[in-house]
């Protein structure tokens, strides 16, 4: 699961140019992995059911992360039980995304599913800023962002037409 939103943070890179060039193919490979994951989910969901396919992702992921955490040793920061409850909501949102992946990829393909997902991310950030939804401060959305939103809509129309 990944999000395009972090782009707005954009901290200055600190690595040497050589290291950056070495890391880039690795990051591209990681992105390719996301499409492979989506590519595995579609056919799996058709065979065993969309919720079961989703469970396979979260079940296997939980098990791997639990083992990694055990071997990583003590962690810094507060106990999970001390955190504000609302910060735990993220866990309920993840499955929605995975279920939708299993539903959509057999019909519109993986590349187009990814474009639609990215569209939702871009659209959400533009609209939230413009209307000040969810308690965000209302910001004036500049022409470039509206242009971006227009292009996204054009991309979605193109996908819908096939």
């Amino acid at each position, binding site marked *: 699961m990944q999000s*395009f939103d*972090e*782009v707005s943070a954009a*901290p200055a890179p600190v690595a040497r140019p050589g290291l*950056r060039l070495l890391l*880039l193919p690795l*990051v*591209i490979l*990681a*992105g*390719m*992995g996301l*499409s*492979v*994951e989506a*590519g*595995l989910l*579609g*056919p*799996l969901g058709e065979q*065993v*059911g969309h*919720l079961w396919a989703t*469970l*396979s992702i*979260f079940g296997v*992921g*939980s098990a*791997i*992360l*639990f083992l990694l955490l055990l071997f990583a040793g003590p*962690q*810094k920061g507060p106990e*999970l039980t001390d*955190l504000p409850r609302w*910060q735990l909501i*993220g866990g309920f949102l*993840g499955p929605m*995304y995975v279920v*939708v992946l299993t*539903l959509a990829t*057999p019909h*519109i*393909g*993986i*590349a*187009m599913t*990814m*474009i*639609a*997902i990215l*569209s*939702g*991310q871009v659209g959400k*950030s533009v609209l939230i800023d413009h209307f000040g939804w969810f308690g965000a401060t209302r910001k004036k959305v500049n022409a470039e*962002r509206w242009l*971006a939103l227009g*292009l996204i809509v054009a*991309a979605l129309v193109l*996908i819908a037409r096939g």
Partner: protein
Amino acid sequence: MSLVILLAVVVLAGAVLSVQAAINGRLGETVGVLRSSLLTFVVGAVSTGLLILFFEPAHAVSLLDVPKWQLSGALFGVVYMMVMVGAVPRVGTAVATVAVIVGQLGMGMLIDNFGWLGNPAIELSSSRVLAMVCLGLALVFMYRSSVRQAV
């Protein structure tokens, strides 16, 4: 399900995903990436499990019957997470995001075009290429506007 409704659902899922990423980003800063991801995955597994128990109809084929490689999806997600944790501070968020999207769409096109992993083969049509060009331009404009706001 008609294509337009399906597309709307997928776009909505993208919006939900970025809300999730925002919440998890804050969680990760306080408790560390491993623990915040474990929490996300465990809550995801438990809530999906509950939905299955009460709402999922029986299927002739179970997770135990399919070839094992079909269950490897989660590995790619975990590897992705670890690569990003290691690479983002070194190459910068913007570069990392662009690289991920390039990899994602490139691989997506390959899988679609050749029908790999048991997916239906979808030929790369001119409207699909145009859609990708539109998305690429949209991301360029989003990036330029956020860089300007940050200055």
